């Protein structure tokens, strides 16, 4: 796209990195090659443990005591970095090659002022005087759109927000105008709207500084947004590399293809489409299959795939693939097997569908805020949930979306009885449930169960899988004592795990398997309502699909009602019938899934939708960015809580003066769809759709 393409900024050839472990050397990265031109953004995408971060740390030779580069070359501006002395590399690091990392809070030294941490880069590499260096830093902070940069220089990391911390880290990386900027999952720890703003910044800086960017991410949507070219990594090696549009629209490796089909695209829903999970798990680097490393999981695998390991080759100009049958996959000539499709036959919705299972009105959950005064002082509250009303009908799924701190988890905990509500009516099947779980009767407890977010903590590490699923069976007396084991096995089979999992301990399971056991445990007592708290957000994308499909099957077979918390809007769209959007403890919009994704929008919904990274380079998204951070729930803004950040206030007379003083009305769009906003519906109808997808071209596989 730019001039001077002759020497790439970075050229990696056949890179192999291994770690010494107790069990001998383990090759974490094998045969990775790619190059990045000046001004280009190159993305490496892959699931956790695929070796993408190892590649990045290999480039800067930060592999720890036990890691080493065993093969290949890393040419930076034409010169090989492998085998150079630490001192030479040190002079490159932070100067010619800079890096931005995942968790900005962790990446900054908590005990030094930001100004010191920024300016030392210039002082060390450029020998600049302190005052000059500080001026440069302030200037750079302005470039990354940091409000009040001079003041920020005097602050400590914990005094600014996560998004601002990431801006500081980016500014730090850019101070010496590096030739190569490596970004390792820079937005993974951030909220969607903050992530969108940081990604905008990356794109802006890419053009402004003409830097080569190496972008590492697991998120296909983010990669689609930031990069020009993409390399897909799987189990330590690169399986495909091509331009963004080729990767997303014409993948030639079955793994890439699988990745594209296992994430729900925004607009897909469960009644009209399926998710195709990739079966099995990633092989361990010390136990690779002899043939193609993807063969055990590949739906296209032939005999040759088991015997011969393919090398990466150019399938068409600029499109490289490590598959024996790349051309056929590209041409769509090979068909995947369909044996993993979810069993969604028994779906039955008639009759009972109108019955209310859960009805919540005026729910409030406040936490006592610790008083800062020695004695006395007014009692303060964190209003985690403040005046929330909704209901769920039998067999339906309610999705609750919102950014971190919006109160969605507190709401669910209140319903399940782990938090004490401050006010409001909570009715479950006509029974009052505003009591804590300890004073509920067993039948009620049995009917309200929960699936948790973190696969690593959802199971008790000390007990076997079977024992943990059996516990609720025994407690709720779902089946007679003697049948408990059979019932556990039945549930394991239902989760596609099999009886041999009965005696395993959690540490012997993969993340997806743990999550499935968690689901089995939750549904063991055959509950009426299952609360799912981000059940797939901690899983790799290829595993997410399998878990979502299982939840769908459970719902179909048992007619379970569900509440589903998520921050991923495409997952919610796919999975839920009704969606509630929460902001600062309140629901701002609630309605049928499809209605939420089309105008009229609440301005916050609109902003969220425009921020979602979408794994499809053809998608056009409107550019709406929120200013500032989420206000404190201790002192929420008056009137409409969103008024401090609302980009649509100008639609109202006086620039929306009313928003600051008056609580907005609930405007009824349809019987089921309500919006909590002052702006008249007619105006909201006029808003353009945020996301425009060329549906005609959308290629459904199956």
């Amino acid at each position, binding site marked *: 796209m730019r001039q001077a393409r002759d020497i790439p900024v970075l050229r990696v050839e056949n890179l192999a990195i291994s*770690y010494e*472990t107790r069990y001998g050397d*383990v090759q*974490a990265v094998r045969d990775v090659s790619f190059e990045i031109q000046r001004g280009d953004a190159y993305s490496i995408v892959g699931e*956790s*443990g695929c*070796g993408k*971060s*190892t590649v990045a*740390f290999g480039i800067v030779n930060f*592999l*720890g005591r036990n*890691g080493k580069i065993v093969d290949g070359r890393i040419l930076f501006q034409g010169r090989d970095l492998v085998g150079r002395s630490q001192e030479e590399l040190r002079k490159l690091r932070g100067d010619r090659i800079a890096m931005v990392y995942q968790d900005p809070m962790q990446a900054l030294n908590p005990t030094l002022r930001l100004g010191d941490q920024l300016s030392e880069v210039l002082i060390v590499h450029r020998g600049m005087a302190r005052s000059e260096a500080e001026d440069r830093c302030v200037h750079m902070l302005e470039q990354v759109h940091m409000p009040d940069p001079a003041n920020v220089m005097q602050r400590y990391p914990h005094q600014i927000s996560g998004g601002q911390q990431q801006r500081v880290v980016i500014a730090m990386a850019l101070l010496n105008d590096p030739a190569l900027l490596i970004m390792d999952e820079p937005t993974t720890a951030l909220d969607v709207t903050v992530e969108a703003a940081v990604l905008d910044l990356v794109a802006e800086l890419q053009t402004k500084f003409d830097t080569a960017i190496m972008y590492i991410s697991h998120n296909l949507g983010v990669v689609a947004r930031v990069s020009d070219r993409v390399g897909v990594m799987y189990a330590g090696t690169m399986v495909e590399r091509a331009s963004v549009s080729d990767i997303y629209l014409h993948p030639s490796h079955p793994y890439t293809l699988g990745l594209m089909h296992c994430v729900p695209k925004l607009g897909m829903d469960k009644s009209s489409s399926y998710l195709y999970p990739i079966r*099995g*798990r*990633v*092989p*361990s*680097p010390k*136990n690779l*299959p002899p043939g193609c490393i993807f063969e*055990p999981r590949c739906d296209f695998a032939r005999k040759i795939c088991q015997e011969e390991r393919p090398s990466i080759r150019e399938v068409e100009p600029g499109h490289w693939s490590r598959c024996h049958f790349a051309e056929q996959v590209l041409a769509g000539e090979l068909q995947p097997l369909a044996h993993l499709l979810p069993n969604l036959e028994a779906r039955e919705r008639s009759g009972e569908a109108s019955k209310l299972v859960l009805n919540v009105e005026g729910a409030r959950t406040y936490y006592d805020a610790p008083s800062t005064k020695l004695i006395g002082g007014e009692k303060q509250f964190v209003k985690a949930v403040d005046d929330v009303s909704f209901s769920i009908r039998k067999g339906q799924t309610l999705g609750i979306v919102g950014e971190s701190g919006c109160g969605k988890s507190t709401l669910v905990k209140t319903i*399940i*009885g*782990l938090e004490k509500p401050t006010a409001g009516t909570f009715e479950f099947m006509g029974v009052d449930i505003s009591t804590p*779980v*300890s004073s*509920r009767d*067993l039948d009620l*407890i049995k009917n*309200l*169960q*929960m699936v*948790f*977010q*973190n696969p690593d*903590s*959802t*199971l*008790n*590490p*000390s*007990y076997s899988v079977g024992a*943990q699923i059996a*516990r*609720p069976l025994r*407690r*709720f007396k779902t089946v007679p004592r003697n049948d408990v084991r059979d019932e556990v096995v039945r549930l394991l089979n239902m989760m596609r*795990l*099999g009886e*041999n*999992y009965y*005696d*395993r*301990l959690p540490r*012997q399971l*993969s993340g997806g398997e743990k999550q499935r056991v*968690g689901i089995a*445990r*939750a549904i063991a007592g055959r509950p009426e309502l299952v609360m799912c708290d981000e059940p797939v957000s901690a899983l790799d994308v290829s595993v997410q699909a399998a878990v979502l499909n299982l939840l769908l099957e459970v719902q179909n077979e048992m007619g379970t009602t569900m509440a589903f918390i998520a921050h991923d809007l495409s997952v919610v769209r796919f999975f839920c019938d009704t969606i509630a959007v929460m902001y600062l403890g309140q629901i701002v919009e609630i309605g049928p899934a499809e209605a939420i994704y089309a105008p009229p929008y609440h301005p916050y919904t609109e902003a969220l939708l425009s921020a979602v990274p979408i794994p499809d380079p053809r998608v056009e998204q409107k550019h709406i960015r929120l200013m500032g951070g989420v206000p404190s729930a201790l002192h929420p803004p008056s009137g409409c809580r969103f008024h401090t950040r609302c980009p649509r206030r100008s639609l109202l007379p006086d620039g929306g003066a009313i928003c600051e003083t008056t609580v907005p009305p609930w405007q009824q769009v349809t019987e089921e769809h309500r919006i909590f906003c002052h702006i008249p519906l007619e105006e909201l109808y006029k808003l353009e759709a945020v996301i425009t997808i060329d549906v005609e071209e959308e290629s459904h596989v199956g």
Partner: protein
Amino acid sequence: MSVAETTPSKTSEAPAGTQRKWWEPLTLIFRSGVGTVGLVIIVFWVLVAILAPLIAPYSPLAQDSTAINQPPSAQYLLGTDNMGRDMLSRLIYGSRTILLLAPISVFCSVAVGTFLGLLGGYFGGLIDEVVMRILDAIMAFPTILLYLIIIAALGPSALNVVLAITFVGAPGVARLVRSLTLDIRTRDYIRAAETRGENPFYIMFFEILPNARGPIIIDSMLRVGYAIFSIGTLGFLGLGLPPPTPDWGGMISEARKYIWTSPLGVLWPALAISSLVVALNLFADGLREESTRYQ
């Protein structure tokens, strides 16, 4: 840095389900050189204590008025003390005293501390506040002072030594268990147990405690070492077991008066107690190093 997180076995049909044996964690210790040294010394002293009646040449209390403060000889391998008692026999029997009292007192303090720590950590709020304030107040005392006061008040006896060590040790255990509990109780499996409506004591003892056992066991090992240290100190200060019970600390205290005439009298018990405490600490440290590396 990312190799560790890759999953251990390839496919579900692989024999990943083979259970680890209960003793397998114990073999960890042999990976640590110093840990093994510690274990060997501990086993040596435990054997000495068990076999004391068989290997001791004399009764620990038998006095030989013709041989007072004698240097080592063929008759008395390590010499005699100021009352003409055989040093070797007293040393051998002294290991019994110390190896019996130390584990008992550690067990008591771990039991009390674990219970209080679970209680405070799981319930939080006022219970935690009250329990922790009291424990903090106890911990504000220099330990030696607590020993002095308790023994001064209750008088020296085996039971009171156990009581004193329990009282002094329990707050430390409680703090450890509390911090472990505070961590573990945020895990989702505790939420799951709560949403099943489990009894708080079930959650504390069956959901939380099994997952805290590793650090508690290692801490207990260190505590046994420290308990021996303390019992020796109490004996040395004259606050331990009343004479004539053979007690290493007391033996040093007695022999110290004759250090200028028979210096070896203090050397043997000092070496004995040092070797045992050092061994226990090496063992506990080796165990901790290896178990953290293993995770």
